[in-house]
């Protein structure tokens, strides 16, 4: 699944729930932030994509995403494992990761911060609030935040 290799990815959305994903993308699109968004449906895919392995074997990794929106509860590799892998690898260590999850569980929050997450957002149940939250995240990380210097 070799998507447009040359295009630098702004947002990497890792979300197994297609409805949440659609709503997230809809919110971001309303702010025109979806030009270079890639949606992956589980942790394993995310790892393969980021490190050019598995299905993404040979993918040319030009630039890291400006932000990775990471769900926690996912089949196969869950969000925490993905976060751990990202922070362990030199290539992705500095990439901003925002956990976007339904879990308000303390252990999850604690573990994510311990692994070096940049932000932890609980998905609001209310649709409007959800849209607002996602929009804010997108605007902040893509427009306001200065991404880390990429040496590659």
């Amino acid at each position, binding site marked *: 699944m070799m998507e447009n290799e040359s295009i630098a990815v702004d947002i990497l959305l890792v979300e197994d729930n297609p409805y949440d994903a659609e709503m997230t993308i809809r919110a971001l699109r309303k702010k025109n932030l979806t030009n270079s968004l890639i949606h992956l449906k589980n942790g394993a895919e995310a790892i393969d994509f980021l490190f050019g392995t598995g299905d993404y074997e040979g993918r040319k990794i030009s630039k890291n995403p400006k932000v990775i929106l990471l769900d926690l509860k996912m089949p196969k590799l869950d969000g925490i494992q993905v976060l751990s892998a990202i922070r362990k690898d030199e290539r992705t260590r500095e990439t901003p990761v925002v956990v976007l999850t339904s879990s308000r569980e303390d252990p999850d929050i604690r573990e994510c911060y311990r692994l070096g997450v940049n932000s932890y957002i609980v*998905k609001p149940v209310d649709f409007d609030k959800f849209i607002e939250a996602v929009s804010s995240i997108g605007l902040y990380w893509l427009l306001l935040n200065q991404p880390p210097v990429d040496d590659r």
Partner: protein
Amino acid sequence: MANKTPVTARTKTKRIQAILSKLSSLAEGDYESYLPVSDDLDGLDAIAAGVNALGESLKAKEKASNEQEVRINKLIDVLLKYTIMDFSMRCEMSDREDELDALAAGLNTLGEELDYAIRQLKQGEAKLSKIIEHAPDAVVVINQEGIIKTWNPAAEKIFGWQETEATEKPLHELLIPDRYRRQHQEGLKRFLDMGVSKILDKTIEMPACRKDGTEILSELTISHVKQKDGYMFIAFLRDISERKKAEDEIRQLNNTLERRVEERTLELLESEQKYKLLFDCTPLPKWIIDLEEYRFQVVNEAAVKHYGYSREEFLSMTAVDIRPESEREKFLNFNRTFPAQDQNIGIWKHQKKDGTIIDVELSVQNVLYNGKKCRLVVVNDVTEKLKAHQELNRINEKLEQMVEQRTSQLQNANREMEAFTYSVSHDLRAPLRAINGYAQMLTEDWNTILPPEGLRQLNSITENATRMGQLIDDLLRYSRLGKAELNPTSFDLNGIVEEVINELKQAVAIRAKIKIQELGNVIADHILIRQVYMNLVDNALKYSSRKSEPQVEIGVNDHLIHGKRVYYVKDNGVGFDMKYYDKMFGVFQRLHNQEEFEGTGVGLAIVKRIITLHDGQVWANGVLNEGATFFFTLKLN
């Protein structure tokens, strides 16, 4: 002599007649006259001379006989003097050395001897008197009529009668107690009549009277002498009242002593028996070992039974022999280094005759036994006890393990439950969000072509989804309280009540008149108590919202219940029927339907849970359509 005259017949006759007369005088004892004798020396003269010679001879004879008589009379006088105990006279001796002289000499010797003897006697008597006078004993002499003849100073002293008062008085009147007088007189009479006496020359004890009427006990010895005028009795009396008393005391003391000795002996016997009993009649084995060789000196029946050794076997062994090899050194070391004294020396291992090794708890006491330093050992076989103890420990451990296991199971279950509720919340939320979102998206994207009925239906979908979200949230909040740990701090209740009201004001317009009393400080979990007020005030506002003049009162009672302050939140709203009271604090229990008043039915359940966590109580009063008051108690500061 005779004148020479002519002899004549007549002269002759005269002469003859003179001779005859002379003879007759001689015959009559008249020897003084003599016959004249003439110088003629005739016949008559010869006769006259012869008669004169005879006269002379008779006269001499008579003279000699008179002398004898005088001498004899003199001897008789001396003898008479002797008989009246006058030995001062002596007989005169003649130089004739005849029989009378011999007699006189004998008498004189006798007189002298008697004189000496009497003098001796008198001396003795004087001595005797002195003795009697100074004798410490009363010496009383009576004659055979019982009249007192001698009464010495000791008698005066002992009996109180002076010598002058006592002498010549009958003894029985002075000394003999009434009850003995007859006996005394009879005894005296018997002796005089028959010479028999029960008391003479013996020492007897007799009560005797004193002048002052008191009686003493005397030790009495009576001797008797026969004198010319009858018997004399000499009585020696000694006051032995004191001695007797002392003797009695001594006797009594002796008796007491004897009795005590007897008692003590009995006691000793008894205690020996007791000890023997104690030693023998006990289920605990006991023995005594000496401290040199640890040899058994004595063992009780229980030891014999318990260890299987006969008494004889025991007595031939030492305490080392009843220990397993492995323990012997320990035993010897212990005794070398620690001479145990009267105490429990802990648990040891012994070996029975059949080889069984038992655990025994030993109590020891050092004793002297048969003069040897020994040790009394009391054995308590704790093998079974130890086993039971170990078993108990094992069971306890098992129980503890089980408890631990159960606890961890419970903890696991709790964790699982938590995980479950969270995943429920997560997994339930996601579809809700989707339902909500898609309904919203539908509205947003297609509202221009949807008919009003379609929009209303979409709205119902959104409303229900929202409500379900609230239910999930409340459920989560409630379940989270189950494992909540209190974090008590001191805070002002009025502060949180204000916060709560402000927060509520943001959500809905508040029409009600809210009256807030001074509530004071509490020590409680700030967040949880805030939740309590949030729920109660929210309820009060909600259920009074339809009233024309809704009123809510937040206060505290003056009186305490069980030492706790009573807080309340009161409204004048719809109230409730007390018959549904039981349902009120249950989860998802509602007394109103959703159209009337919104709500999930978790609020009061949460209130109850929080207050219960604080050891408080919750209750309510309500009258349908008049209002409700919710009470809860919290500990004082």
